[in-house]
């Protein structure tokens, strides 16, 4: 059978009809010639030929593929029913599915991009990351970068002694500054060891990549390789970029190569702009280089397994070569820290999917995927209910068709065809929605200082995920009504009058169960949404211990000003003093670690001769810090310029400090020492002030003991001046004032700004994401469930018209009728809420780590959720109840 004939089978059918007509005509002619009367001749000819329709059907079937043919018929029929008879139903059904599928696909797409997809390099499964085995490592020292896993001395030993990898590399992701001074122009950099590109087997698009020849300790003028994106952005994709010189942190680098468009580094969610050899770290950091610092953590390492080596074998090998490495790289530690350092062992973990600190979003994303799955489930239950109602309405039609000999399977298939159309259309719209939604979400994850590039383009995994979703939803909401509709004996359905004896308790029971499930599931989502919204609210309104509004943070980098370390503090003080005299600046203070930025310092203390085990937060501040933060001291005095490097070391402590270390007594006049490594002097600090508790590292942390010491005494060296500025000036005016002043002091000073409020908002990105999305999904779920309840109640009222009419004829008044319907709705709602509350308490536990200042089973939240869902649902069922009470008894009975 040819495809051509299949496609033209209806034209062929016409031909056959004409041929058979001709046959009949000839036969009739001959019969008449034999002497038959014309009517006898016609009858005889017809008898002889037989049923022409059957013949044509037989030939038609030869030209077709039976299954495909009927499938097309079914789909066409279903499409017609949906679009012509019920466009509203089709739109609601497709839209609710599209939202459900779209939300699921979005979450899956993000997870896929973040966690599942492998790096776009050759044989990513062979890549493993080398790190110190175990969690919660007690490492001491200085940490820099997003993946501060190893120190350079450790890395050099790993590189020289390992036998598990055919090659191995280390890298760090510093932020370089392209500007020559003034406002900074940050670019995402990479410090890579010599084998970075060869291990990943990444070849350049233009020029060359870096090799081990480029990465020699003490390199004077190392080359740079730039990414495709940076090349397009900075050089407009011109080949003349090769050989040009790039200024990074004020140092020249020659561009020797450009990588291909798909290569972004090894960190998921980031794109590198410029890669330079690791030896250039010394050029950027100068005297503060970490290359020889045994306690300078800033590197991470990835190796490519030799053929035949497994990750376990590599781990065991790394473990075996660990002890001497840690012994050789011991820094000056306190005895406890030294012990834990010597106990460290290296291990290997898979790195084929790259590394990412965006994986803090992994748990929220899985949770959101579960949430969206519930939304989809509720939408399916709702659709199943609608389809059931439609099937019941078509009961008599189906019964007639069954009685006429249609097969049950064919009818079930026809009904299923409608579901297939809805599911496919819903999934299609959902897939488009997901593309857009996931891009919006990724864009919303980025903050001013944290650019995020997550490649969320759909791949075959996303495609299969959506296809599976479509199939599963279709089965969920389509199969049950289809089976149900054809399960009735035709005789029963025909006999059943308008009252519908087939509408048995059992069948109606199924619809009630679906509604109870919907209410329960949507309650879970509403509870979740409330928990996350309240978490965000708790975090944004939490007392940080200072006033966040009108507070500007300015970071001034003096690194390129060429000021020697010994004079840097004076330069800072000079700039601070001049800034304080600018008009409009209410108060300005220097602070080493700006609160809630995630940077912090801590020390162990010796109090009354006893070494305390806990680490205590430290911060170095200038005078007037507390006034700038609008957090006046509770007792004692502020620091002043009389606190110098040579005067008595002083400190201001917080209430928590006093409570933990001095049992809440007034700490003024008391003393402590810092538990320094042996051989380092331990000055005695005298507490001169008591400050309010304040958030430090993270706004989510509870108040912890915090010690402020004057920046003019014993501050660790650093060329960066961080200022908090309280000013009522417009933001642009304040920043330009500060930038201008910095330029006056030295043209190469680089300045960066952000407000404390945006700082806080950025740090709450995860909570904002959870609150927004779960709020949206919760509202969506509640809406769908309410529509479901409304549908079932309306249906029930329509079905019980007769009964209600009789009741009213017998003297029931409207209130009683309303009461009857509402009691029914209340039973469904009550059952749903009860099941939902139990499910919520269980489900909320999974989210407990994402909550702030709330218990998963928070009674107020549960009560609010149940009450609000209940209120909406009661309104939704009041409408059908009202309709029932307005029935005219005589009309209802006449309908019989």
């Amino acid at each position, binding site marked *: *059978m040819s495809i051509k004939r299949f496609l033209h089978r209806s034209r062929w059918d016409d031909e056959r009809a004409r*041929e058979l007509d*001709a046959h009949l005509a*000839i036969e009739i*002619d001959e019969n008449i010639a034999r002497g038959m009367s014309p009517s006898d001749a016609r009858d005889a000819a017809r008898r002889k*030929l037989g049923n022409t329709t059957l013949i044509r059907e037989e*030939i038609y079937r*030869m030209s077709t593929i039976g299954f495909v043919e009927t499938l097309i018929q079914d789909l066409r029929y279903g499409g017609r029913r949906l679009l012509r008879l019920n466009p509203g139903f089709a739109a609601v059904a497709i839209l609710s599915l599209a939202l459900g599928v779209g939300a699921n696909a979005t979450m899956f797409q993000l997870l896929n991009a973040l966690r599942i997809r492998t790096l776009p390099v050759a044989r990513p499964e062979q890549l493993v990351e080398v790190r110190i085995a175990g969690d919660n490592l007690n490492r001491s020292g200085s940490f820099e970068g997003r993946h501060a896993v190893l120190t350079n001395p450790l890395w050099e030993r790993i590189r020289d002694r390992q036998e598990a990898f055919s090659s191995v590399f280390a890298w760090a992701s510093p932020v370089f500054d392209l500007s020559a001074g003034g406002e900074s122009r940050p670019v995402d950099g990479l410090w890579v060891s010599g084998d970075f590109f060869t291990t990943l087997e990444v070849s350049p698009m233009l020029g060359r990549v870096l090799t081990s020849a480029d990465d020699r300790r003490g390199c004077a003028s190392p080359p740079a390789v730039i990414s495709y994106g940076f090349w397009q952005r900075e050089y407009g994709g011109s080949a003349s970029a090769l050989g040009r010189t790039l200024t990074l942190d004020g140092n020249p680098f020659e561009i020797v190569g450009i990588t291909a468009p798909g290569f972004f580094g090894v960190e998921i969610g980031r794109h590198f702009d410029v890669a330079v050899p690791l030896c250039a770290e010394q050029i950027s950091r100068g005297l503060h280089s970490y290359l020889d610092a045994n306690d300078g953590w800033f590197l991470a390492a990835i190796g490519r397994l030799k053929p035949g080596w497994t990750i376990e074998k590599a781990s065991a090998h790394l473990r075996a070569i660990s002890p001497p490495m840690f012994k050789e790289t011991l820094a000056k530690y306190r005895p406890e820290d030294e012990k834990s350092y010597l106990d460290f062992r290296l291990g290997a973990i898979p790195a084929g999917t790259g590394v990412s600190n965006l994986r803090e979003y992994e748990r929220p994303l899985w949770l959101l995927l579960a949430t969206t799955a519930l939304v989809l489930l509720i939408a399916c239950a709702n659709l199943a209910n609608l389809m059931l109602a439609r099937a019941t309405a078509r009961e008599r039609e189906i019964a007639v068709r069954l009685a006429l000999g249609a097969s049950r399977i064919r009818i079930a298939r026809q009904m299923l065809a409608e579901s297939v159309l809805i599911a496919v259309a819903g999934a299609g719209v959902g897939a488009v929605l997901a593309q857009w939604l996931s891009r919006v979400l990724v864009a919303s994850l980025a903050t001013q200082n944290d650019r995020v590039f997550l490649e969320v383009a759909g791949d075959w995994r996303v495609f299969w995920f959506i296809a599976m979703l479509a199939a599963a939803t279709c089965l969920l909401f389509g199969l049950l009504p289809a089976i149900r509709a054809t399960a009735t004996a035709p005789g029963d359905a025909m006999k059943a009058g308008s009252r519908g004896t087939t509408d048995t308790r059992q069948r109606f029971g199924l619809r009630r169960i679906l509604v109870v499930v919907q209410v329960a599931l949507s309650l879970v989502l509403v509870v979740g949404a409330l928990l996350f919204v309240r978490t965000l609210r708790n975090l944004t309104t939490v007392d940080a211990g200072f006033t966040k509004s009108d507070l500007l943070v300015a970071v001034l980098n003096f690194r390129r000003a060429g000021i020697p370390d010994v004079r840097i503090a004076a330069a800072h003080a000079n700039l601070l003093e001049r800034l304080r005299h600018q008009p409009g600046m209410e108060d300005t203070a220097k602070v080493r670690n700006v609160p809630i930025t995630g940077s912090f310092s801590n020390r162990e203390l010796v109090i009354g001769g006893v070494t305390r085990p806990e680490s205590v937060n430290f911060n170095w501040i200038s005078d007037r810090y507390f006034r700038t933060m609008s957090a006046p001291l509770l007792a004692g005095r502020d620091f002043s310029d009389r606190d110098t490097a040579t005067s008595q070391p002083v400190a201001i402590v917080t209430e928590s400090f006093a409570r933990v270390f001095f049992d809440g007594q007034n700490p003024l006049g008391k003393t402590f020492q810092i538990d320094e490594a042996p051989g380092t002097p331990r000055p005695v600090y005298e507490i001169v002030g008591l400050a309010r508790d304040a958030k430090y590292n993270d706004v989510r942390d509870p108040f912890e003991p915090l010690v402020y010491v004057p920046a003019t005494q014993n501050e660790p060296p650093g060329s960066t001046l961080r200022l908090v500025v309280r000013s009522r000036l417009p933001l642009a005016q304040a920043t330009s004032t500060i930038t201008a002043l910095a330029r006056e002091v030295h043209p190469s000073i680089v300045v960066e700004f952000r407000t404390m409020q945006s700082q806080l908002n950025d740090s709450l990105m995860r909570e904002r994401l959870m609150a927004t999305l779960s709020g949206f999904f919760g509202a969506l779920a509640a809406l769908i469930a309410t529509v479901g309840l409304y549908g079932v109640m309306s249906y029930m009222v329509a079905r019980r018209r007769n009964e209600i009419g009789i009741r009213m004829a017998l003297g029931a008044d409207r209130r009683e009728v309303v009461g009857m319907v509402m009691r029914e709705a209340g039973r469904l709602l009550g059952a749903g809420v009860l099941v939902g509350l139990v499910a919520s308490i269980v489900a909320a536990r999974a989210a407990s780590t994402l909550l702030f200042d709330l218990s998963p089973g928070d009674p107020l939240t549960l009560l609010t959720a149940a009450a609000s869902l209940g209120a909406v649902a009661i309104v939704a069922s009041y409408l059908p109840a009202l309709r029932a009470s307005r029935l005219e008894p005589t009309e209802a009975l006449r309908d019989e």
Partner: protein
Amino acid sequence: MPKRGNAPIQGELLQGTLDLLILKTLALGPAHGHTIAYAIEHRSEDVLQVEHGSLYPALHRIEDRGWISSFWGTSENNRRARYYRLTPEGRKQLTEQTNRWDEIVKAINRVLRPA
């Protein structure tokens, strides 16, 4: 009234024999469905009764295989009718299938009437 001689055989032609008979009939020249049916009945001396209902599906099937082709023409009594003619491929098939038929008949005879 029953006919003399062998009773007509109807509807129990061996699978494929109708195709062979149609090919043989068309070997004499183009013909339309009605003629083919009567020609077969006539030439078998009314022993083989072609069920008209199965004739047309058979014609369709053979045409599909490319053994015959069709065209619209005018019948003896001036009616438009669909004519079929043998293609070269059909002629080859006729020879092959006739040979095969002879072999089958011989084989069956060998079984039924052992020498």
